[in-house]
């Protein structure tokens, strides 16, 4: 499973300060740290408090791609900010994200086609997040159909079935796993899958344990990637172990180190 490192996000105070002061140090530090820990992508989110999202996103892209060779995942609801970032990305990037709402899909898949970008598609629409797997899968199919219509390769699409915290939306857990399984049957080749991993543990006391358990259970259902804390060593070790148990990587005694170094 690919880890999309979540840490360069204006929700964190050090990154918010960095963006405000245009001081690259914290961004560089987290880019390097997440890369060293085994992240495969770096998520960039300018956060809620920024007035000019376009220039903030451009700055984050510039600073991050100086510090790391990893592909970037541009995370914003402001598609102008995403487009500004895509224009200056040196490597094909990922767009995070688009719901199954027609005018948004029109904009995002056009961008994806133009910039050869990957896309995270959310299994939700104007009515919000569905309760059951069937409705999630139906929205996933809309995303697949639009992706195909805009000529974006289906395996450049990552569907996020949307995870709710296990203390408030406990009944969503099994629905998410079922959605992950069914997404792999939607097309050939099938779309990829992703989740915002830390959502599962929002507001709970034992967040890291819940994240790790959820990650390996979801991998067994077909999860390909997750926006997650790449610096949680136990999480990375759990993912590396699940890859061995699922016969995705060939075992050797140093398999955790090999997993961490594979993107470097």
């Amino acid at each position: 499973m690919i880890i999309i490192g979540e840490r360069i996000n204006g929700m964190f105070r050090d990154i918010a300060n960095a963006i405000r002061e245009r001081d690259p140090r914290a961004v560089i530090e987290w880019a390097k740290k997440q890369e060293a820990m085994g992240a495969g992508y770096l998520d960039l989110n300018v956060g809620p408090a920024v007035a000019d999202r376009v220039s903030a996103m451009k700055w984050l892209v510039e600073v991050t791609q100086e510090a790391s060779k990893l592909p970037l995942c541009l995370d914003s609801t402001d598609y102008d900010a995403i487009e500004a970032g895509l224009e200056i990305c040196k490597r094909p990037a990922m767009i995070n994200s688009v719901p199954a709402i027609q005018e948004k899909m029109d904009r995002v898949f056009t961008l994806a086609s133009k910039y050869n970008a990957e896309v995270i598609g959310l299994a939700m629409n104007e009515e919000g997040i569905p309760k059951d797997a069937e409705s999630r899968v139906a929205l996933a199919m809309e995303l697949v159909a639009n992706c195909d219509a805009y000529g974006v390769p289906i395996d450049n699409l990552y569907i996020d079935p949307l995870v709710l915290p296990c203390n408030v939306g406990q009944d969503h857990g099994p629905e998410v796993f079922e959605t992950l399984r069914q997404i792999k049957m939607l097309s050939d080749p099938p779309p990829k899958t992703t989740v915002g991993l830390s959502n599962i543990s929002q507001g709970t006391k034992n967040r890291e344990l819940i994240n790790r358990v959820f990650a390996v259970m979801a991998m067994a259902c077909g999860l390909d990637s997750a926006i997650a804390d790449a610096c949680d060593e136990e999480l990375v070790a759990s993912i590396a172990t699940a890859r061995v148990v699922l016969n995705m990587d060939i075992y050797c005694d140093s398999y955790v180190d090999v997993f961490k170094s594979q993107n470097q």
Partner: protein
Amino acid sequence: MAVELFKEKYRSQVREVVLGATKEEGGTRSHTLKVGGESALPFLHFEGKIPNRPLVAMEIWDIVPEEWPAGLKSFFEDVYNDPGAWAKKCVEEYGADLIAVRFKSADPDIKDASAEECIATLKKVLEAVGVPLIIYGCGKAEKDNTIIGPLAEAAEGENLLLGVAEQDNFKSVASAAMAYKHCLIAQSPIDINIAKQLNILIAEMSTPLLDRIVIDPTVASLGYGIEYSYSIMERARFGALQGDRMLAMPTIANVGHEVWSKKESFISEEEQPGWGCQEERSIGWEAATAGALLQAGMDILVMRNPKAVGLVKKLIDDMMQDNS
């Protein structure tokens, strides 16, 4: 309507390793050889690139190989006492792509030859032939650790293929390869997990060595569990093509050594009338073993019988015909 063949797409490829060095490159070889570089399963030219043909090395010893059966020895009777002449005959008469020198004389139970004596032999072979060389010790790790380093030093710049690094004894060979710029054989006991781990251990000593490792996965001969060797190799090659960098090395097998220690190769027709002519049988046994390993992706075959070598080189010619 034409049937469209389904083609598998792989995202990675086997590393390419260069053996030998010419004068311009700091050695004395007449040419260099490349192995590996495949981006598809063996000989599936239509699915990817098979840029380098598999190579056949012929094995020579630095002592008279008394234990070899008469039928095999007869090919080399005139040259046994001269490793240089033996190597030359293998290259010029039998078409060996490389020469593998086995320093049997170093065995403490045979002659316990010193590093200096081994170096003198190596120099003779280097002078006699222009092809790149593979060197093996006597097979006893403790003694081999005392000769491989000096041999590597004496042939600095020749880019030899040094044998063999094993999981519990890899440092001397890896250090010699690192210090004197040679390639090395990483040998594991028919165990893919150890094959991978050994490459990691070598890479921890020196990352650039990753591009100079040739994996010896250890093979069995036909009838002695070759299917097990085959499946290990197949799994490693799938891993390499799918992006496992720690298994993406070309491979080498001691085919002659395995085959000629099995009774099917050496027992006479008088002893086993039902088995037919010993000479034909042994050639077939060695060639068929080599052929099966080629299909599993073997890049270098170390062989003994010149007639089997001829058959295998013909097979490689045929399999390297473009089928894309």
